[in-house]
């Protein structure tokens, strides 16, 4: 049984996996009722919050899995990339447990976790495939040649896709989290109502732009500009106009992602695409990707929602695969803020 911890950003998560893919528990603090011993107001974005919840969350995970620490054969924790203070909480707790119980320990890259989450639900994903990680903090494209064999081909040059959704929702005062709200409102609007242009990405730019890279800040600015030009104080935007606006924004955001996906799949002749991260929940992206896959005879995979958002199950999976191969981390493994899993070529 593999015990895993994830605390790279806002979420604290603990999972227990019976390898290869039987999840016995997968708890995420924000979606779980936890009794915090000392209570009080805890800063939302603080490492302290991870510290408050990690022990009770770990104890609840053992109970949910119906096991004790005696049943655990290996421990994994996210070690990069993320906020150092936040990462250190999960990593230090995991290392201490492993050291105290004399268990093998492995540090896992968060992105590698996202790229592998799909294997918890599917055992037929072909290699090589295109792995797309789209979330509030990441927008990256990898060729996944096999387990632990990744090549980074492109990434966002500015905002992550999920960040663009959140910020557009904020711009229009639609609430938080922006992703699901924009998705819902966009379904009521006309995606062709307003034409936003796609960013021009040229390979030779001195600003380090690769041909598969994406950009969302121009689109965000275009939405801001459109609002400035059309939202006249004595005549606020109607609900219908907002629906059209977010539908058009979402349509363009999906186009931006699909452009890179289709270029990479074509250039590298890949048989499948795996989309993970929180934005993989977006219905327009799912539909565009699925339709495109059917049309081009490319298989498309989306892990279920609980495996798309930040979670420890994916960390447990990657950890279990490394441990099964005899790979472990040293006790002096430290948390690092950056750390892509492939090399940009």
């Amino acid at each position: 049984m593999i015990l895993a911890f994830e605390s790279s950003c806002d979420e604290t998560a603990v999972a227990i996996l019976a390898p290869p893919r039987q999840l016995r528990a997968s708890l995420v603090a924000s979606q779980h009722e936890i009794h915090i011993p000392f209570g009080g107001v805890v800063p939302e974005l603080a490492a302290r919050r991870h510290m408050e919840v990690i022990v009770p969350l770990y104890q609840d995970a053992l109970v949910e899995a119906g096991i004790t620490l005696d049943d655990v054969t290996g421990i994994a924790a996210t070690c990069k990339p993320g906020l150092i203070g936040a990462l250190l909480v999960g990593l230090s707790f995991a290392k201490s447990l492993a050291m105290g119980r004399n268990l093998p320990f492995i540090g896992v890259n968060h992105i590698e976790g996202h790229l592998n989450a799909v294997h918890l639900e599917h055992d037929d994903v072909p290699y090589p495939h295109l792995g797309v990680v789209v979330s509030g903090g990441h927008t990256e494209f990898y060729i996944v040649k096999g387990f632990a064999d990744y090549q980074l081909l492109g990434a966002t040059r500015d905002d992550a896709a999920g960040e663009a959704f959140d910020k557009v929702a904020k711009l229009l005062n639609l609430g938080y989290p922006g992703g699901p709200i924009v998705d819902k409102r966009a379904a009521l609007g006309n995606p062709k109502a307003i034409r936003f242009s796609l960013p021009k990405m040229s390979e030779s730019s001195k600003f380090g732009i690769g041909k598969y890279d994406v950009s969302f800040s121009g689109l965000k600015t275009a939405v801001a500009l459109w609002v400035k030009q059309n939202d006249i104080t004595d005549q606020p935007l109607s609900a219908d106009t907002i629906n059209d606006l977010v539908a058009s924004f979402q349509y363009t955001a999906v186009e931006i992602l699909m452009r890179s996906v289709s270029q990479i799949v074509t250039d590298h002749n890949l048989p499948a695409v795996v989309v993970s991260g929180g934005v993989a929940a977006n219905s327009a992206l799912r539909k565009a990707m699925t339709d495109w896959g059917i049309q081009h005879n490319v298989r498309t995979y989306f892990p279920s929602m609980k495996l798309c958002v930040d979670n420890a199950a994916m960390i447990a999976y990657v950890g279990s695969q490394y441990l099964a191969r005899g790979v472990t981390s040293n006790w002096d493994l430290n948390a690092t803020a950056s750390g892509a899993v492939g090399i940009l070529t």
Partner: protein
Amino acid sequence: MKQTATTLEDTYRIAAELAATLKPGDTVALSGDLGAGKTTFVRGITMALHGHAKDVTSPTFTLMNIYEGTPPIYHFDWYRIDSLASLQTLGMEEYLEGTGIAIVEWGEKFPQELPAKTRHIRISLNTDGTRHFSGI
């Protein structure tokens, strides 16, 4: 003083002019609405100081990005930070007034946390798509 940018190149030029006046230990605070072009301005500063800006992305989610180079650039974003208590757990004082240049987006949210000598730059997007930079 106020400068106006009509094109992306104008923004990069204004950023480069500011960059030429920055030295290690300096802090720049950027304010402006969503979509005003704060991260793009940081891209321009980094390009001017490092010769490239390959690693520059929005730090909204990560809260802080470090761009290695001479001098190193610490790119902060306080957009998601909702309380002084949250901000104070980030340990950013380690990076301010040190060996690198700190640039803080949404720095106006917690002005008391910025060094006294911080350069404040406001970016505003106009209805015709041009941008005004004030405080340069």
